[in-house]
């Protein structure tokens, strides 16, 4: 088996099989995997916020759904992925705490998910699998060799999609 490549919060990485992409303890953030099954190249971005245009100090492209996906596509193209063959799998966007106030934080997971889907749609990238929302953390592992996304959560069975 290849190397495990770890992606942190507001971070993005790309790889080719047999290497594996992983992000640990995804909460309200969203993990987006883009995959080209022909060249077995894949990239993962761990975005924290939906929209870069609403935020000052947005140097880190990987922090936002909109700029993160753009940046990921560029990096994928650089290692030989074909833009038109890319498909997406997304997971995360949980609501970790049951907030009762109408604070903005309330829906951040949901908003991250929505923004990621909108962005992918606008780029014409098909979302083939999604595991988002609810109230628990997820650890993701993506295997470009098989195109499978493993989702591990506390006290829940392993999900493969």
């Amino acid at each position: 088996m290849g190397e495990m490549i770890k992606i942190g919060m507001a971070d993005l990485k790309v790889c080719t099989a047999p290497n594996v992409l992983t992000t640990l303890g995804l909460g309200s953030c969203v993990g987006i995997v883009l995959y080209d099954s022909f060249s077995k190249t894949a990239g993962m971005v761990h975005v924290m916020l939906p929209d870069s245009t609403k935020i000052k100090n947005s140097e880190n492209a990987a922090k936002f759904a909109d700029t993160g996906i753009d940046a990921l596509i560029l990096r994928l193209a650089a290692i030989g992925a074909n833009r038109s063959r890319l498909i997406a799998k997304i997971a995360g966007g949980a609501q970790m705490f049951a907030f009762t106030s109408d604070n903005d934080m309330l829906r951040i997971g949901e908003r991250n998910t929505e923004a990621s889907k909108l962005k992918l749609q606008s780029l014409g990238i098909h979302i083939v699998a999604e595991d988002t929302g609810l109230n628990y953390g997820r650890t993701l592992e993506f295997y470009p060799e098989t195109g499978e996304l493993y989702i591990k959560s506390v006290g829940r069975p392993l999900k493969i999609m």
Partner: protein
Amino acid sequence: MSNINLDQIDSMQYDVLTEIGNIGAGNATTALSTMINGKVDMCVPKVALLEFKDLPDMVGGAENLVVGILITLEGEINGMMMFMLEQKSAYHLVNLLMGKAQDDEAFTEMEFSALKEIGNIIAGAYLSSLSTLINIRINASVPYLSIDMAGAILSVPAIEFGKVGDKALIIETQFSKDDSDVNGYFILIPTLESYDVILTSLGL
């Protein structure tokens, strides 16, 4: 008004923030110690400016199973206060309080509620000492509880910080009971503006 620059925290600001952690966590540790009627030790607080991806390493790694009790702060001081316990410690603490002989490995509704209250009392002790020190009222929310991976729980305060920058400035204090079966962290995460308010009120 002092304007804190995340990349250039001077040693004076650093010392003051460490001392805030010291006083706050000192009070919180005392409250915890009274509650369980046993000695609780705390470490010297760490003031750290961290990139988001390094945040979970502060509390034993992203996949470390923890109980997180989150309180949001509003008013002149905005931000979040988090009280984190390793899951084993949380069981132990609850069982200690509920007078059970053995450490159960699951929480009942009643125990959830007890855990929230523990968080409330302890975070309250931290915040009230901070409030007295800087002479500013701090409005705290009700406690919110989540049991999950540390990374997932920390994503909530991290996202708040993500709105204003690429790094998070946190004041963290670790505590442990002498026989090390209760282990956890206090994390104070004020917004940038609130750091200014705190430092200004202390004459910096």
